[in-house]
């Protein structure tokens, strides 16, 4: 009886110890600890960086003096079209909704696979890039 109890006690201790440290898959001792998913964070950073690059170009365009009513940008007069800025703003709002969802998911569920929600953010960023390219803000 005492052998059974000590074995059970030992198993319980093993499980408890196994719950405290980092996972064995990450150099720790725990067999039950959740595994952090660095792939999600890195992939999200890549999507955010791609967005940052095109957003930088959009902001550079936004910083140009605004075209006056009836004026068209030309080689001799660089100016930003109000209509183009409004389109960029709308596309940015859509992209941000998707990005914020992905950020929230990666932050709150660090152990889950976030590929699907990051893919949605990636598509939203691509939409922004297409809008910027269609309006010649980027090539």
């Amino acid at each position, binding site marked *: 009886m005492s052998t059974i109890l000590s074995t059970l006690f030992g198993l319980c201790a093993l499980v408890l110890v196994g719950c405290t440290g980092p996972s064995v898959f990450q150099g720790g001792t725990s067999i039950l600890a959740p595994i952090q998913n*660095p792939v999600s964070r*890195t992939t999200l950073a890549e999507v955010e960086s*791609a967005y940052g690059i095109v*957003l930088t170009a959009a902001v550079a365009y936004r910083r140009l003096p605004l075209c006056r009513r009836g004026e068209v940008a030309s080689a001799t007069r660089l100016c930003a079209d109000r209509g183009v800025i409004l389109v960029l703003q709308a596309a940015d709002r859509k992209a941000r909704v998707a990005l914020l969802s992905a950020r929230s998911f990666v932050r709150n569920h660090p152990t889950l696979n976030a590929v699907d929600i990051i893919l949605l953010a990636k598509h939203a960023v691509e939409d922004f890039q297409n809008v910027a390219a269609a309006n010649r803000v980027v090539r």
Partner: protein
Amino acid sequence: MNAIAIIGVVTSVVQAAQLAIEAGKSAAPFIQILARTFTGNRTEISEEELQSIQDQVDNLSTELQAPLPPEESAPSTS
């Protein structure tokens, strides 16, 4: 093309080049992250690096979303 027009074109080209250089500087942190991927050196991004990238994206987005000033009329040509 007269001299004034030529100066105008040159000024615009210089302005465009300055814009491109400024945009290039601002985009550098983003390019560094992506460069890791494309050079086969895809290392794990730290929490701090991700936060820094997100802060920069947020700042750019805030600047893009700033309300436009009232529209100006083109100067009269007559």
